[in-house]
Protein backbone atom coordinates (compact mmCIF):
# COMPACT_ATOMS: atom_id res chain seq x y z
CA UNK A 1 0.00 0.00 0.00
CA UNK A 2 2.87 2.32 0.84
CA UNK A 3 4.27 2.15 -2.68
CA UNK A 4 0.83 3.01 -4.02
CA UNK A 5 0.58 6.09 -1.81
CA UNK A 6 4.04 7.22 -2.85
CA UNK A 7 3.12 6.66 -6.49
CA UNK A 8 0.07 8.85 -5.98
CA UNK A 9 2.16 11.58 -4.36
CA UNK A 10 4.53 11.39 -7.33
CA UNK A 11 1.63 11.75 -9.75
CA UNK A 12 0.19 14.87 -8.12
CA UNK A 13 3.52 16.71 -8.32
CA UNK A 14 3.77 19.09 -11.24
CA UNK A 15 7.42 18.32 -12.10
CA UNK A 16 6.62 14.66 -12.62
CA UNK A 17 4.69 15.69 -15.71
CA UNK A 18 6.87 18.39 -17.25
CA UNK A 19 10.04 18.22 -19.33
CA UNK A 20 10.99 16.24 -22.42
CA UNK A 21 11.17 12.97 -20.45
CA UNK A 22 8.36 13.85 -18.03
CA UNK A 23 5.27 11.75 -17.57
CA UNK A 24 3.23 14.13 -19.75
CA UNK A 25 5.52 13.77 -22.76
CA UNK A 26 5.71 10.01 -22.20
CA UNK A 27 1.93 9.68 -21.98
CA UNK A 28 1.56 11.68 -25.20
CA UNK A 29 4.09 9.41 -26.98
CA UNK A 30 2.27 6.40 -25.61
CA UNK A 31 -1.07 7.65 -26.90
CA UNK A 32 0.42 8.44 -30.33
CA UNK A 33 1.91 4.96 -30.62
CA UNK A 34 -1.42 3.43 -29.67
CA UNK A 35 -3.34 5.48 -32.22
CA UNK A 36 -0.74 4.81 -34.93
CA UNK A 37 -0.59 1.06 -34.30
CA UNK A 38 -4.38 0.65 -34.16
CA UNK A 39 -4.81 2.94 -37.18
CA UNK A 40 -2.46 0.92 -39.36
CA UNK A 41 -3.96 -2.32 -38.08
CA UNK A 42 -7.45 -1.08 -39.00
CA UNK A 43 -6.25 -0.22 -42.52
CA UNK A 44 -5.14 -3.83 -42.88
CA UNK A 45 -7.82 -5.67 -40.93
CA UNK A 46 -11.00 -3.77 -41.84
CA UNK A 47 -10.92 -4.48 -45.61
CA UNK A 48 -9.76 -8.05 -45.01
CA UNK A 49 -12.46 -8.68 -42.41
CA UNK A 50 -15.19 -7.15 -44.56
CA UNK A 51 -14.16 -9.29 -47.51
CA UNK A 52 -14.30 -12.43 -45.40
CA UNK A 53 -17.64 -11.46 -43.87
CA UNK A 54 -19.19 -10.37 -47.15
CA UNK A 55 -18.16 -13.25 -49.37
CA UNK A 56 -18.28 -15.82 -46.60
CA UNK A 57 -15.08 -17.31 -48.00
CA UNK A 58 -11.74 -17.67 -46.29
CA UNK A 59 -13.42 -17.68 -42.92
CA UNK A 60 -11.57 -20.78 -41.70
CA UNK A 61 -8.29 -19.30 -42.82
CA UNK A 62 -9.05 -16.04 -41.02
CA UNK A 63 -10.05 -17.83 -37.82
CA UNK A 64 -7.00 -20.09 -37.88
CA UNK A 65 -4.47 -17.39 -38.69
CA UNK A 66 -5.81 -14.90 -36.16
CA UNK A 67 -5.72 -17.61 -33.51
CA UNK A 68 -2.15 -18.54 -34.38
CA UNK A 69 -0.96 -14.93 -34.47
CA UNK A 70 -2.57 -14.21 -31.11
CA UNK A 71 -0.41 -16.91 -29.55
CA UNK A 72 2.80 -15.07 -30.53
CA UNK A 73 4.54 -13.53 -27.52
CA UNK A 74 4.87 -9.82 -28.29
CA UNK A 75 8.25 -9.39 -26.60
CA UNK A 76 9.62 -12.18 -28.79
CA UNK A 77 8.26 -10.56 -31.94
CA UNK A 78 9.64 -7.21 -30.84
CA UNK A 79 13.13 -8.58 -30.23
CA UNK A 80 13.14 -10.53 -33.46
CA UNK A 81 12.03 -7.56 -35.56
CA UNK A 82 14.36 -5.29 -33.59
CA UNK A 83 17.33 -7.48 -34.48
CA UNK A 84 16.47 -7.10 -38.16
CA UNK A 85 15.41 -3.45 -38.44
CA UNK A 86 17.36 -2.02 -35.50
CA UNK A 87 16.17 0.02 -32.56
CA UNK A 88 13.55 2.76 -32.81
CA UNK A 89 9.85 2.90 -33.51
CA UNK A 90 9.69 0.38 -36.36
CA UNK A 91 10.06 -2.80 -34.32
CA UNK A 92 7.44 -1.98 -31.65
CA UNK A 93 5.03 -0.83 -34.38
CA UNK A 94 5.31 -4.15 -36.19
CA UNK A 95 4.84 -6.04 -32.93
CA UNK A 96 1.82 -3.94 -31.90
CA UNK A 97 0.22 -4.24 -35.34
CA UNK A 98 0.61 -8.01 -35.20
CA UNK A 99 -1.09 -7.84 -31.81
CA UNK A 100 -3.97 -5.60 -32.93
CA UNK A 101 -4.85 -7.06 -36.34
CA UNK A 102 -6.49 -10.30 -35.08
CA UNK A 103 -8.96 -8.49 -32.80
CA UNK A 104 -10.03 -6.04 -35.47
CA UNK A 105 -10.22 -8.77 -38.11
CA UNK A 106 -12.33 -11.01 -35.91
CA UNK A 107 -14.67 -8.14 -34.96
CA UNK A 108 -15.05 -7.08 -38.57
CA UNK A 109 -15.93 -10.43 -40.10
CA UNK A 110 -18.19 -11.29 -37.19
CA UNK A 111 -19.88 -7.91 -37.67
CA UNK A 112 -20.42 -8.41 -41.38
CA UNK A 113 -21.59 -11.98 -40.81
CA UNK A 114 -23.92 -11.08 -37.98
CA UNK A 115 -26.36 -9.43 -40.32
CA UNK A 116 -29.43 -11.59 -40.82
CA UNK A 117 -29.02 -13.39 -44.22
CA UNK A 118 -32.69 -12.61 -44.95
CA UNK A 119 -31.90 -8.90 -44.72
CA UNK A 120 -29.02 -9.34 -47.16
CA UNK A 121 -31.29 -11.33 -49.48
CA UNK A 122 -33.95 -8.67 -49.25
CA UNK A 123 -31.40 -6.01 -50.14
CA UNK A 124 -30.28 -8.06 -53.12
CA UNK A 125 -33.93 -8.54 -54.20
CA UNK A 126 -34.30 -4.77 -54.17
CA UNK A 127 -31.58 -4.67 -56.80
CA UNK A 128 -28.75 -3.42 -54.58
CA UNK A 129 -25.24 -4.02 -55.90
CA UNK A 130 -22.58 -5.86 -53.88
CA UNK A 131 -21.01 -2.55 -52.82
CA UNK A 132 -24.39 -1.15 -51.82
CA UNK A 133 -25.15 -4.25 -49.76
CA UNK A 134 -21.75 -3.95 -48.06
CA UNK A 135 -21.88 -0.22 -47.32
CA UNK A 136 -25.61 0.29 -46.81
CA UNK A 137 -26.50 -2.95 -45.05
CA UNK A 138 -23.64 -5.04 -43.69
CA UNK A 139 -21.31 -2.32 -42.37
CA UNK A 140 -24.02 -0.23 -40.66
CA UNK A 141 -25.73 -3.26 -39.12
CA UNK A 142 -22.44 -4.85 -38.12
CA UNK A 143 -20.97 -1.59 -36.80
CA UNK A 144 -21.31 -2.31 -33.07
CA UNK A 145 -19.31 -5.53 -33.44
CA UNK A 146 -16.74 -3.88 -35.73
CA UNK A 147 -16.20 -1.07 -33.23
CA UNK A 148 -16.03 -3.72 -30.51
CA UNK A 149 -13.08 -5.32 -32.30
CA UNK A 150 -11.26 -2.00 -32.54
CA UNK A 151 -12.05 -1.29 -28.89
CA UNK A 152 -10.47 -4.58 -27.86
CA UNK A 153 -7.42 -3.90 -30.03
CA UNK A 154 -6.96 -0.46 -28.44
CA UNK A 155 -6.97 -1.97 -24.96
CA UNK A 156 -4.40 -4.60 -25.89
CA UNK A 157 -2.16 -2.10 -27.63
CA UNK A 158 -2.28 0.59 -24.95
CA UNK A 159 -1.05 -1.92 -22.39
CA UNK A 160 1.54 -3.57 -24.58
CA UNK A 161 2.94 -0.29 -25.96
CA UNK A 162 5.03 -0.29 -22.76
CA UNK A 163 7.41 -2.46 -24.76
CA UNK A 164 8.30 0.41 -27.10
CA UNK A 165 10.73 1.54 -24.41
CA UNK A 166 12.51 -1.80 -24.65
CA UNK A 167 14.01 -0.73 -27.96
CA UNK A 168 14.58 2.92 -27.24
CA UNK A 169 11.31 4.37 -28.53
CA UNK A 170 10.05 5.85 -25.25
CA UNK A 171 6.42 5.95 -24.21
CA UNK A 172 5.26 5.17 -20.69
CA UNK A 173 7.47 2.08 -20.69
CA UNK A 174 10.48 4.35 -20.15
CA UNK A 175 9.59 5.40 -16.57
CA UNK A 176 8.35 1.85 -15.97
CA UNK A 177 11.70 0.27 -16.89
CA UNK A 178 13.58 2.97 -14.98
CA UNK A 179 11.53 2.22 -11.87
CA UNK A 180 12.00 -1.51 -12.31
CA UNK A 181 15.76 -1.32 -12.72
CA UNK A 182 16.45 1.17 -9.95
CA UNK A 183 14.09 -0.43 -7.41
CA UNK A 184 11.98 2.73 -7.60
CA UNK A 185 8.61 1.04 -7.23
CA UNK A 186 6.58 4.24 -6.77
CA UNK A 187 7.80 5.39 -10.20
CA UNK A 188 7.00 1.99 -11.70
CA UNK A 189 3.52 2.09 -10.21
CA UNK A 190 2.98 5.69 -11.26
CA UNK A 191 3.75 4.81 -14.89
CA UNK A 192 1.41 1.83 -14.65
CA UNK A 193 -1.36 3.98 -13.17
CA UNK A 194 -1.07 6.44 -16.04
CA UNK A 195 -1.38 3.57 -18.53
CA UNK A 196 -4.40 2.24 -16.65
CA UNK A 197 -5.97 5.71 -16.73
CA UNK A 198 -5.29 5.95 -20.47
CA UNK A 199 -6.80 2.52 -21.04
CA UNK A 200 -9.93 3.34 -19.01
CA UNK A 201 -10.42 6.67 -20.79
CA UNK A 202 -10.00 5.11 -24.23
CA UNK A 203 -12.35 2.29 -23.31
CA UNK A 204 -15.02 4.69 -22.07
CA UNK A 205 -14.70 6.68 -25.30
CA UNK A 206 -15.05 3.60 -27.48
CA UNK A 207 -17.87 2.26 -25.32
CA UNK A 208 -19.77 5.48 -25.91
CA UNK A 209 -19.18 5.30 -29.65
CA UNK A 210 -20.26 1.66 -29.68
CA UNK A 211 -23.48 2.40 -27.77
CA UNK A 212 -24.26 5.32 -30.05
CA UNK A 213 -23.73 3.13 -33.10
CA UNK A 214 -26.03 0.47 -31.67
CA UNK A 215 -28.71 3.03 -30.89
CA UNK A 216 -28.48 4.56 -34.37
CA UNK A 217 -28.69 1.12 -36.02
CA UNK A 218 -31.84 0.36 -34.11
CA UNK A 219 -33.25 3.32 -35.97
CA UNK A 220 -35.53 6.13 -34.81
CA UNK A 221 -38.43 3.63 -34.65
Amino acid at each position, binding site marked *: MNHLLEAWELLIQADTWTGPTGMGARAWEHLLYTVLAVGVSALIALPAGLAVGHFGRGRNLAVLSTGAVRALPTLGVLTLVGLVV*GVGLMAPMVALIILAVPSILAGTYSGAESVDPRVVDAARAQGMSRWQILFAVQIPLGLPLIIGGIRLAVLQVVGTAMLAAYVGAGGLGAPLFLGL*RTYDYPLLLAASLVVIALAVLLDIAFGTVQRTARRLMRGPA
Partner: protein
Amino acid sequence: MRKHTPVWAGLAGLTLALTSCGSDDPMGGGGDDDAGQDGALVVGSQQYYSNTVVAELYAQVLEEAGYEVERDYDIGQREAYMPDLEAGEIDVFPEYTGNLLQYLDEDAEDTGEQEVLEALGETLPEGLTALTPAEAADQDSYTVTPEFAEEHGLESIGDLAEVEEDLTIVANAEFEERPYGPGGASEVYGATVNLMNVEDSGGQLTLNSLLDGDAQLANIYTADPAIEEHDLVVLEDPEEMILPQNMFPLVSSAVDEEAQAALEEVSAALTQEELIALNTSSVDEQASAEDVAETWLVQHELIEPDGSGQEG
Protein backbone atom coordinates in the same frame (compact mmCIF):
# COMPACT_ATOMS: atom_id res chain seq x y z
CA MET B 1 -29.61 -16.85 -6.59
CA ARG B 2 -28.71 -20.49 -6.49
CA LYS B 3 -27.56 -20.26 -10.07
CA HIS B 4 -24.94 -17.71 -9.12
CA THR B 5 -23.45 -19.56 -6.18
CA PRO B 6 -20.79 -21.46 -8.16
CA VAL B 7 -19.55 -18.20 -9.67
CA TRP B 8 -19.14 -16.57 -6.28
CA ALA B 9 -17.55 -19.68 -4.87
CA GLY B 10 -15.15 -19.72 -7.79
CA LEU B 11 -14.30 -16.06 -7.34
CA ALA B 12 -13.71 -16.53 -3.65
CA GLY B 13 -11.46 -19.48 -4.38
CA LEU B 14 -9.55 -17.48 -6.95
CA THR B 15 -9.10 -14.59 -4.53
CA LEU B 16 -7.82 -16.99 -1.90
CA ALA B 17 -5.42 -18.57 -4.36
CA LEU B 18 -4.15 -15.16 -5.45
CA THR B 19 -3.71 -13.74 -1.98
CA SER B 20 -2.04 -16.83 -0.62
CA CYS B 21 0.70 -16.48 -3.22
CA GLY B 22 1.37 -12.91 -2.10
CA SER B 23 4.25 -11.97 0.13
CA ASP B 24 5.15 -8.76 1.93
CA ASP B 25 7.24 -7.59 -0.97
CA PRO B 26 5.04 -7.21 -4.05
CA MET B 27 8.04 -7.79 -6.33
CA GLY B 28 9.59 -10.66 -4.38
CA GLY B 29 9.85 -14.01 -6.06
CA GLY B 30 8.85 -17.18 -4.29
CA GLY B 31 11.86 -19.04 -3.07
CA ASP B 32 12.20 -22.80 -3.18
CA ASP B 33 10.75 -23.94 0.11
CA ASP B 34 12.59 -27.25 0.06
CA ALA B 35 15.93 -25.51 -0.16
CA GLY B 36 18.28 -25.38 2.77
CA GLN B 37 17.30 -28.64 4.38
CA ASP B 38 19.26 -31.80 5.11
CA GLY B 39 22.48 -29.85 5.66
CA ALA B 40 23.09 -29.43 1.95
CA LEU B 41 24.64 -26.17 0.79
CA VAL B 42 22.30 -24.31 -1.55
CA VAL B 43 23.99 -22.52 -4.44
CA GLY B 44 21.91 -19.87 -6.18
CA SER B 45 22.39 -17.76 -9.29
CA GLN B 46 20.89 -14.78 -11.07
CA GLN B 47 18.94 -15.18 -14.26
CA TYR B 48 22.02 -14.44 -16.35
CA TYR B 49 24.01 -17.15 -18.07
CA SER B 50 27.40 -15.80 -17.00
CA ASN B 51 26.31 -15.73 -13.35
CA THR B 52 24.92 -19.26 -13.55
CA VAL B 53 28.17 -20.62 -14.98
CA VAL B 54 30.12 -19.17 -12.05
CA ALA B 55 27.51 -20.56 -9.63
CA GLU B 56 28.09 -23.95 -11.22
CA LEU B 57 31.86 -23.54 -10.68
CA TYR B 58 31.12 -22.96 -6.99
CA ALA B 59 28.74 -25.92 -6.85
CA GLN B 60 31.19 -28.35 -8.42
CA VAL B 61 34.20 -27.41 -6.24
CA LEU B 62 31.99 -27.75 -3.17
CA GLU B 63 30.91 -31.21 -4.31
CA GLU B 64 34.54 -32.09 -4.95
CA ALA B 65 35.33 -31.03 -1.39
CA GLY B 66 32.73 -33.50 -0.18
CA TYR B 67 29.75 -31.22 0.46
CA GLU B 68 26.23 -32.02 -0.56
CA VAL B 69 25.03 -29.28 -2.91
CA GLU B 70 21.58 -28.17 -3.99
CA ARG B 71 21.24 -25.90 -7.02
CA ASP B 72 18.68 -23.10 -7.11
CA TYR B 73 19.53 -21.19 -10.28
CA ASP B 74 18.00 -18.37 -12.35
CA ILE B 75 16.40 -16.46 -9.47
CA GLY B 76 16.12 -13.08 -11.19
CA GLN B 77 16.90 -9.91 -9.34
CA ARG B 78 18.41 -9.10 -5.98
CA GLU B 79 15.15 -8.27 -4.26
CA ALA B 80 14.04 -11.79 -5.08
CA TYR B 81 17.06 -13.67 -3.72
CA MET B 82 18.59 -11.42 -1.04
CA PRO B 83 15.81 -12.18 1.48
CA ASP B 84 16.44 -15.90 0.91
CA LEU B 85 20.16 -15.42 1.51
CA GLU B 86 19.48 -13.47 4.69
CA ALA B 87 17.09 -16.17 5.87
CA GLY B 88 19.75 -18.84 5.23
CA GLU B 89 17.74 -20.58 2.53
CA ILE B 90 20.51 -19.96 0.03
CA ASP B 91 24.12 -20.35 1.15
CA VAL B 92 26.34 -19.45 -1.79
CA PHE B 93 25.71 -16.84 -4.47
CA PRO B 94 28.02 -15.35 -7.14
CA GLU B 95 27.83 -11.59 -6.63
CA TYR B 96 29.30 -8.40 -8.07
CA THR B 97 30.97 -5.96 -5.66
CA GLY B 98 29.63 -2.64 -6.94
CA ASN B 99 26.05 -3.61 -7.70
CA LEU B 100 25.59 -5.40 -4.39
CA LEU B 101 26.91 -2.37 -2.51
CA GLN B 102 24.55 -0.12 -4.48
CA TYR B 103 21.65 -2.43 -3.61
CA LEU B 104 22.52 -2.47 0.10
CA ASP B 105 23.26 1.24 0.32
CA GLU B 106 21.76 3.49 -2.34
CA ASP B 107 23.87 6.44 -1.23
CA ALA B 108 27.22 4.63 -1.38
CA GLU B 109 29.70 6.82 -3.21
CA ASP B 110 32.82 4.65 -3.19
CA THR B 111 34.12 3.70 -6.60
CA GLY B 112 37.69 2.40 -6.09
CA GLU B 113 38.02 -1.38 -6.01
CA GLN B 114 39.33 -1.44 -2.42
CA GLU B 115 36.89 1.16 -1.09
CA VAL B 116 33.95 -0.72 -2.54
CA LEU B 117 35.14 -3.90 -0.82
CA GLU B 118 35.51 -2.18 2.52
CA ALA B 119 32.14 -0.46 2.25
CA LEU B 120 30.59 -3.77 1.29
CA GLY B 121 32.05 -5.45 4.38
CA GLU B 122 30.41 -2.79 6.54
CA THR B 123 26.97 -2.87 4.94
CA LEU B 124 26.43 -6.62 4.52
CA PRO B 125 23.61 -7.94 6.68
CA GLU B 126 24.57 -10.10 9.62
CA GLY B 127 25.30 -13.72 8.78
CA LEU B 128 26.49 -12.99 5.25
CA THR B 129 30.16 -12.84 4.29
CA ALA B 130 31.85 -11.60 1.15
CA LEU B 131 34.79 -13.85 0.28
CA THR B 132 37.83 -12.51 -1.57
CA PRO B 133 36.77 -11.28 -5.02
CA ALA B 134 38.22 -12.58 -8.25
CA GLU B 135 40.16 -10.36 -10.62
CA ALA B 136 37.35 -11.01 -13.07
CA ALA B 137 34.76 -8.24 -13.28
CA ASP B 138 31.63 -7.77 -15.34
CA GLN B 139 30.97 -4.07 -15.25
CA ASP B 140 29.40 -1.23 -17.17
CA SER B 141 31.48 0.42 -19.84
CA TYR B 142 31.64 3.17 -22.42
CA THR B 143 32.39 1.07 -25.47
CA VAL B 144 32.87 2.18 -29.09
CA THR B 145 33.53 0.47 -32.41
CA PRO B 146 37.20 0.25 -33.46
CA GLU B 147 36.48 2.52 -36.46
CA PHE B 148 34.97 5.23 -34.29
CA ALA B 149 37.86 4.97 -31.80
CA GLU B 150 40.41 5.35 -34.57
CA GLU B 151 38.59 8.17 -36.32
CA HIS B 152 38.53 10.29 -33.19
CA GLY B 153 41.64 8.95 -31.46
CA LEU B 154 39.68 7.65 -28.48
CA GLU B 155 41.36 5.81 -25.62
CA SER B 156 39.66 7.00 -22.47
CA ILE B 157 36.23 8.40 -21.64
CA GLY B 158 37.83 11.83 -21.29
CA ASP B 159 38.72 11.84 -25.01
CA LEU B 160 34.99 12.03 -25.75
CA ALA B 161 35.06 15.67 -24.67
CA GLU B 162 37.06 16.44 -27.84
CA VAL B 163 34.58 14.79 -30.24
CA GLU B 164 32.65 17.39 -32.24
CA GLU B 165 29.56 15.40 -33.22
CA ASP B 166 26.62 14.57 -30.95
CA LEU B 167 27.24 11.44 -28.93
CA THR B 168 24.62 8.92 -27.88
CA ILE B 169 25.17 5.96 -25.62
CA VAL B 170 22.78 3.03 -25.71
CA ALA B 171 22.16 1.47 -22.29
CA ASN B 172 19.48 0.27 -19.91
CA ALA B 173 17.18 2.80 -18.24
CA GLU B 174 19.04 2.75 -14.92
CA PHE B 175 22.18 4.13 -16.59
CA GLU B 176 20.56 7.58 -16.37
CA GLU B 177 20.55 7.43 -12.57
CA ARG B 178 23.98 5.91 -12.03
CA PRO B 179 26.83 8.17 -10.85
CA TYR B 180 28.78 6.99 -13.92
CA GLY B 181 25.91 7.69 -16.33
CA PRO B 182 25.74 10.70 -18.67
CA GLY B 183 25.75 13.04 -15.65
CA GLY B 184 28.97 11.52 -14.36
CA ALA B 185 30.64 11.58 -17.77
CA SER B 186 29.95 15.28 -17.96
CA GLU B 187 31.01 16.03 -14.40
CA VAL B 188 34.12 13.85 -14.23
CA TYR B 189 35.32 13.97 -17.84
CA GLY B 190 33.55 17.00 -19.33
CA ALA B 191 32.02 14.82 -22.05
CA THR B 192 28.43 15.39 -23.22
CA VAL B 193 26.65 12.15 -23.95
CA ASN B 194 22.95 11.57 -24.66
CA LEU B 195 21.28 8.40 -23.52
CA MET B 196 19.15 6.07 -25.61
CA ASN B 197 17.45 3.33 -23.61
CA VAL B 198 17.46 -0.19 -24.95
CA GLU B 199 16.46 -2.60 -22.23
CA ASP B 200 18.24 -5.83 -23.07
CA SER B 201 21.16 -5.26 -20.68
CA GLY B 202 23.95 -4.99 -23.22
CA GLY B 203 22.55 -7.83 -25.33
CA GLN B 204 22.21 -8.24 -29.06
CA LEU B 205 19.87 -5.26 -29.57
CA THR B 206 22.30 -2.97 -27.75
CA LEU B 207 25.22 -4.39 -29.70
CA ASN B 208 23.37 -3.98 -33.01
CA SER B 209 22.58 -0.35 -32.37
CA LEU B 210 26.29 0.29 -31.79
CA LEU B 211 27.38 -1.67 -34.88
CA ASP B 212 24.63 -0.13 -37.06
CA GLY B 213 25.60 3.36 -35.96
CA ASP B 214 22.30 4.20 -34.22
CA ALA B 215 24.52 5.14 -31.30
CA GLN B 216 28.24 5.91 -31.09
CA LEU B 217 28.66 4.35 -27.66
CA ALA B 218 27.18 1.36 -25.90
CA ASN B 219 27.17 0.06 -22.37
CA ILE B 220 28.46 -3.46 -23.03
CA TYR B 221 29.40 -5.39 -19.91
CA THR B 222 33.14 -5.98 -19.80
CA ALA B 223 32.97 -9.78 -19.65
CA ASP B 224 30.84 -9.93 -22.82
CA PRO B 225 32.46 -12.08 -25.54
CA ALA B 226 31.08 -9.61 -28.12
CA ILE B 227 33.84 -7.15 -27.20
CA GLU B 228 36.53 -9.47 -28.49
CA GLU B 229 34.45 -10.79 -31.34
CA HIS B 230 33.88 -7.32 -32.84
CA ASP B 231 37.18 -5.78 -31.70
CA LEU B 232 35.21 -3.22 -29.69
CA VAL B 233 37.15 -0.63 -27.74
CA VAL B 234 36.25 -0.28 -24.05
CA LEU B 235 37.20 3.29 -23.17
CA GLU B 236 39.50 3.54 -20.17
CA ASP B 237 38.27 5.07 -16.95
CA PRO B 238 41.37 6.59 -15.28
CA GLU B 239 39.27 8.51 -12.73
CA GLU B 240 37.59 5.30 -11.52
CA MET B 241 34.16 6.75 -12.21
CA ILE B 242 32.56 3.40 -13.08
CA LEU B 243 31.68 1.15 -10.19
CA PRO B 244 33.88 -1.97 -10.15
CA GLN B 245 31.98 -5.25 -10.39
CA ASN B 246 34.43 -7.94 -9.36
CA MET B 247 32.85 -11.34 -8.90
CA PHE B 248 32.94 -12.95 -5.48
CA PRO B 249 31.13 -15.70 -3.57
CA LEU B 250 28.62 -14.27 -1.11
CA VAL B 251 28.18 -16.93 1.56
CA SER B 252 26.01 -17.62 4.58
CA SER B 253 27.23 -18.80 7.97
CA ALA B 254 26.50 -22.40 6.92
CA VAL B 255 29.58 -22.27 4.69
CA ASP B 256 32.45 -23.41 6.91
CA GLU B 257 36.14 -22.59 6.49
CA GLU B 258 36.93 -25.59 4.37
CA ALA B 259 34.10 -24.75 1.96
CA GLN B 260 35.20 -21.11 1.91
CA ALA B 261 38.74 -22.21 1.01
CA ALA B 262 37.38 -24.26 -1.90
CA LEU B 263 35.39 -21.27 -3.17
CA GLU B 264 38.37 -18.94 -2.86
CA GLU B 265 40.43 -21.26 -5.05
CA VAL B 266 37.90 -20.64 -7.81
CA SER B 267 38.13 -16.87 -7.33
CA ALA B 268 41.93 -17.03 -7.40
CA ALA B 269 41.86 -18.74 -10.80
CA LEU B 270 39.10 -16.55 -12.25
CA THR B 271 40.92 -13.81 -14.15
CA GLN B 272 39.18 -11.44 -16.55
CA GLU B 273 40.33 -13.54 -19.56
CA GLU B 274 39.06 -16.70 -17.91
CA LEU B 275 35.61 -15.21 -17.23
CA ILE B 276 35.36 -14.05 -20.85
CA ALA B 277 36.46 -17.51 -22.00
CA LEU B 278 33.75 -19.09 -19.84
CA ASN B 279 31.14 -16.73 -21.29
CA THR B 280 32.38 -17.39 -24.81
CA SER B 281 31.96 -21.13 -24.45
CA SER B 282 28.44 -20.74 -23.08
CA VAL B 283 27.46 -18.35 -25.87
CA ASP B 284 29.30 -19.71 -28.90
CA GLU B 285 29.13 -23.41 -28.21
CA GLN B 286 25.71 -23.19 -26.53
CA ALA B 287 27.17 -25.57 -23.96
CA SER B 288 25.33 -26.12 -20.68
CA ALA B 289 26.61 -24.40 -17.53
CA GLU B 290 27.41 -27.82 -16.12
CA ASP B 291 29.67 -28.84 -19.00
CA VAL B 292 31.36 -25.46 -19.29
CA ALA B 293 32.08 -25.42 -15.56
CA GLU B 294 33.37 -28.98 -15.48
CA THR B 295 35.73 -28.49 -18.41
CA TRP B 296 37.11 -25.31 -16.89
CA LEU B 297 37.58 -26.77 -13.41
CA VAL B 298 39.37 -29.83 -14.77
CA GLN B 299 41.63 -27.56 -16.85
CA HIS B 300 42.55 -25.61 -13.76
CA GLU B 301 42.99 -28.79 -11.73
CA LEU B 302 40.34 -27.74 -9.25
CA ILE B 303 38.42 -31.00 -9.69
CA GLU B 304 39.35 -34.47 -10.90
CA PRO B 305 38.05 -35.48 -14.33
CA ASP B 306 34.80 -37.45 -14.39
CA GLY B 307 33.90 -36.19 -10.96
CA SER B 308 35.66 -39.10 -9.22
CA GLY B 309 35.67 -37.99 -5.60
CA GLN B 310 38.66 -36.33 -4.09
CA GLU B 311 38.38 -35.26 -0.47
CA GLY B 312 39.64 -31.89 0.71
